[in-house]
């Protein structure tokens, strides 16, 4: 099944979906899960850790779906510390709903994990989210405690080191939005 399929416009009549994420167990693809199963999973496995809350209404739908699918695929809870909101730098695209920050896995903060573990776990989560994003909306930035990647311009070793330190607590993922020049 195409992972970019909008779960609202498609609902599998047989509810095909892995059993341990709430489906009937007839397939092992979380992207087969109907909307209701995704919603139920998100309600119990996605936590908003942003003090004062954050705005999800305008966030890129591909990005949100990918976060929920990644949570289902890895069978972990994720804490969202930032979504659509002001106060961030322009290129991070938080203000236009093109970015998400994730700071906990199963309730454990990356900042509280030893570096090697934080780097490893955050890398797995970020790569999984990226894998569920459609080809025309792949991340242009992924910053984690252990890796710094961006497509927009080359990065020096010093810039990378700074970005890594600024993301010791969280994963940042920016998508360009469908139709944007990549």
């Amino acid at each position: 099944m195409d992972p970019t399929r909008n779960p609202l416009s498609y609902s599998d009549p047989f509810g095909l979906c892995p059993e341990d994420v709430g489906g009937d167990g007839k397939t092992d693809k979380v992207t087969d899960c109907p909307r209701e199963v995704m919603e139920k999973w998100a309600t119990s496995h996605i936590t908003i850790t942003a003090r004062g809350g954050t705005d999800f209404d305008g966030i890129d739908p591909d990005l949100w779906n990918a976060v929920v699918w990644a949570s289902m695929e890895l069978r972990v809870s994720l804490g969202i510390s930032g979504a659509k909101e002001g106060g961030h730098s322009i290129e991070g695209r938080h203000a236009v709903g093109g970015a998400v920050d994730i700071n906990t896995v199963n309730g454990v903060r990356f900042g509280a994990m030893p570096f090697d573990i934080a780097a490893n776990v955050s890398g797995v989560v970020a790569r999984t989210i990226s894998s569920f994003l459609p080809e025309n909306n792949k991340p242009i930035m992924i910053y984690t405690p252990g890796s710094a990647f961006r497509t927009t311009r080359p990065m020096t070793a010093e810039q990378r080191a700074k970005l890594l330190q600024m993301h010791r607590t969280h994963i940042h993922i920016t998508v360009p939005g469908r139709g944007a020049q990549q």
Partner: protein
Amino acid sequence: MNHTSIAAALFIIVLSGTLVAGCREARSVASQEEADLQREFERAPLDGSDAAASAIAGSPQDPLALLVDSLAKIPGEFESNSVGTFSFRGDETLFNAFYQYADSAVVALVECLGNSSPARATYEGRPVPIGYMCYSALIRMAYPTAFEDSPGDWPGVLLNPAPSADELRAAQRAWEEVIAQDAYRIAFDQAFQDVSRVALGVGGRWS
């Protein structure tokens, strides 16, 4: 005033004197114990869990101030890691004990950030500045929202565990500005918003 009244008054005066003396003695003993405890703490090299436990158990000193002071005393070593930053080899418990004090901890750690006195922890065999220990604790709990994704030349990032006094002061000033503008975020682990309200809303996330 009859004899009975005089006797009663004298009894009260003597009793008060005894109580005051007793209280003074008790206070003196308590002060002595506090001083002994403080001396013992200052003498002993701590590991992170000792310091965190001691602070949480309620010490005569403000627990947050005690945690900051303890950063100078934990043994360990900073090493370059595979991605070009620096990892702490030692007990990391203390670095994470600040989180429970949220904004107060951010302020306290930034106050300490400019401290160039040597800590017990080392980098390449030399003591790192206490300010760098505070920086290491700070970036495990907070980040400046305006600079996190494009730090550029922002001086709030320390690139290695041996910053100069000038670099420490510059980093401190940069973070003080961030605090003054309330332009930082603490990476909390508790829920602040109900996802179901957003996810299930008509015209919301799933449409």
